[in-house]
């Protein structure tokens, strides 16, 4: 990868310091609300709204699932995000593979079609889906789990294909031919050549879909029914109207901790595997 020559670093110390301070400043800005969220998970609010600092307590952490519906909403969101990311990654991944692997008529059209949902504001996407489900008026498309899932898959598919496409761009697909010429059976070629190549892109796309799905509010609020199970964002929006409990902050902090742990685990696993990889070439 890119190598930063020592000279560049040493020659402009003031510029570097200014840049570093600025970068740290931006990171602090990014973390302001996060610090607030974590801090307020230890708040002891006197009213139903956990918006003002009243005092320190560990009670919220002792009883993180006191609000049963909050946990249900979280699990529901996880469930939807799991399905949405799996389906979107499969069908979006195939679109990306087809686009980067083959030359065929209509490729440009497919590319344009993929970009359109990305350039459509969420409120318009939600509106069109709502109208569609209302217009279709069939029991299968009655607003609920299925309509939420369909919508989430829709806005994830384009993201998936774009991400995977970007990752495999420039890959020499004739390598597969070479492998086959050397007598490898197609399945083995896929497993040994194609799969390792696309897997980082696939994983990145799946993670992105998961994140987009679990956090979506605008589209979900439009395609979900009255009296239905709320997703986590819908629950939060509703809670804003009646009661912002510190348990929301506790759960948000937990999610944060799990994500950070997973992220930290990535490099650690990488480190563990490195010696093996080094022997490969």
């Amino acid at each position: 990868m890119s190598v930063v020559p020592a000279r560049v670093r040493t020659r402009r110390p003031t510029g570097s310091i200014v840049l570093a301070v600025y970068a740290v400043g931006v990171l602090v800005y990014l973390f302001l609300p996060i610090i607030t969220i974590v801090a307020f998970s230890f708040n002891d609010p006197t009213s139903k709204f956990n918006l003002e600092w009243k005092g320190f307590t560990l009670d919220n952490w002792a009883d993180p699932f006191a609000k049963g519906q909050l946990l249900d909403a979280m699990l529901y969101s996880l469930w939807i995000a799991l399905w949405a990311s799996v389906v979107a990654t499969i069908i979006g991944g195939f679109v990306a593979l087809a686009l980067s692997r083959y030359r065929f008529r209509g490729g440009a059209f497919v590319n344009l079609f993929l970009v359109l949902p990305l350039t459509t504001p969420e409120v318009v996407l939600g509106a069109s889906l709502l109208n569609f489900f209302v217009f279709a008026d069939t029991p299968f498309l009655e607003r609920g789990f299925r309509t939420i899932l369909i919508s989430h898959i829709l806005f994830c598919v384009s993201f998936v294909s774009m991400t995977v496409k970007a990752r495999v761009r420039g890959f020499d697909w004739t390598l597969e031919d070479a492998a086959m010429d050397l007598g490898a059976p197609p399945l083995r070629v896929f497993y040994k050549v194609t799969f390792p190549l696309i897997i980082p892109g696939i994983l990145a796309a799946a993670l992105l879909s998961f994140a987009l799905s679990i956090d979506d509010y605008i589209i979900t609020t439009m395609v979900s029914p009255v009296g239905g199970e709320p997703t986590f964002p819908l629950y939060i929006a509703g809670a804003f109207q009646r009661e912002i409990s510190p348990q929301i902050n506790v759960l948000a902090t937990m999610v944060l901790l799990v994500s950070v742990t997973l992220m930290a685990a990535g490099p650690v696993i990488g480190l563990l595997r490195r010696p093996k990889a080094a022997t490969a070439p």
Partner: protein
Amino acid sequence: MNRQRVRTVQQAINRRQFLGRGAMFGGAVMLSPALLAACGSDDDDKPGSSSTSAGRSSTGDLLVSNWPLYIDPTEDGVTGSIDLFKEASGIDVTYNEDYNDNNEFFAKIQPDLAAGNAIEPDIIAPTFWLVARLISLGWLDKLPLDLIPNAANLVSSLQKPSWDPTGEYSLPWQSGMTGIAYNIDVTGRELDSVDDLFDPAFKGKIGMLTEMRDTLGLTLLSVGKDPNTITFDDAADAFDKLEKAKNDGQIRQFTGNDYQDDLIAGNFAACVAWSGDVAQLALDTPSLRFVIPDEGGMQWSDCMVIPKGADSIVEAAKFMDYVYDPVNAARIAAYVGYNSPVAGVQDELRASDDPAVAALADSALMFPDDATLGRLKVFKSLSDDEEAQFDERFSSITTG
């Protein structure tokens, strides 16, 4: 005394002690003959069957969509009304507090009801004017009043009301008053007029409700118009007044129930508010006050109705019957602080041998005297065309 202010601290003590006695009330409920009968008949219904009296549908469970903070919850070791009802009836109730805004709720249920499909909830609680619209659209089922003997406890002033002239479609859940809430720590003075909301001293610290009939209603009163007989042309002054306040930055936000956050956080010095909410909030934030302004206030009712095609009619009836029992109604009223539509609630409270509970019977907020009632107005029932004009003008102000 003409103006009712919440005597907060005292009421705080009252409510807490009252809630502490919830268990005793619950015990009393279990023994009430009407309910024993109800339980008895319940044993005959197998869950999932769709039978019973007069062939009405029944599923064994019940879904209620109501406004937030509108019933006593189970907390601090005290069992709330929903759990008490579950225990008493064996019906699996899901009680959602997802009714935040009349127009929004209507927009969400409209596609299904227009297409002739049932919606999930078996009971919803629209405000009176929306009840009238739902009746005229034919989107409500008649209440099985023969299964709700306690419906006879409905106070006489709300029987066969203007929005439901035959009284067959709706039973009021709670009635309430719209007035002004303020945080004395922020205002630094008592308020008593709608025009206080337009006082430049509170610029950017004023909240108004997205419910047009509340916000516009008070503004109409402040310009000397009667909301009960208003026409669109006559309302121009009030709309202009609101629009000017919006443009000047006088109004900080138009909100739904979430005005409560801003009031507590001190972002609002004063706002248009509902009587019971403030009573509840003042328990924890004693600097909050509620007043019916000198110009008058608005009066309204949120009503239980059964949307067309609901599949748990029998369970819905049992729930309505339960909350119309004065003992249960008293428990709910004491928590929510609104005006209970059930006759006998005041006596039920007064009869309590706990003086703190008995004192609630004299709460001017829960049982307004005739002088106060005389100053309250009900917003006119608008025709569809009028409604369109009013809504459009109002929303051009709220989403300027």
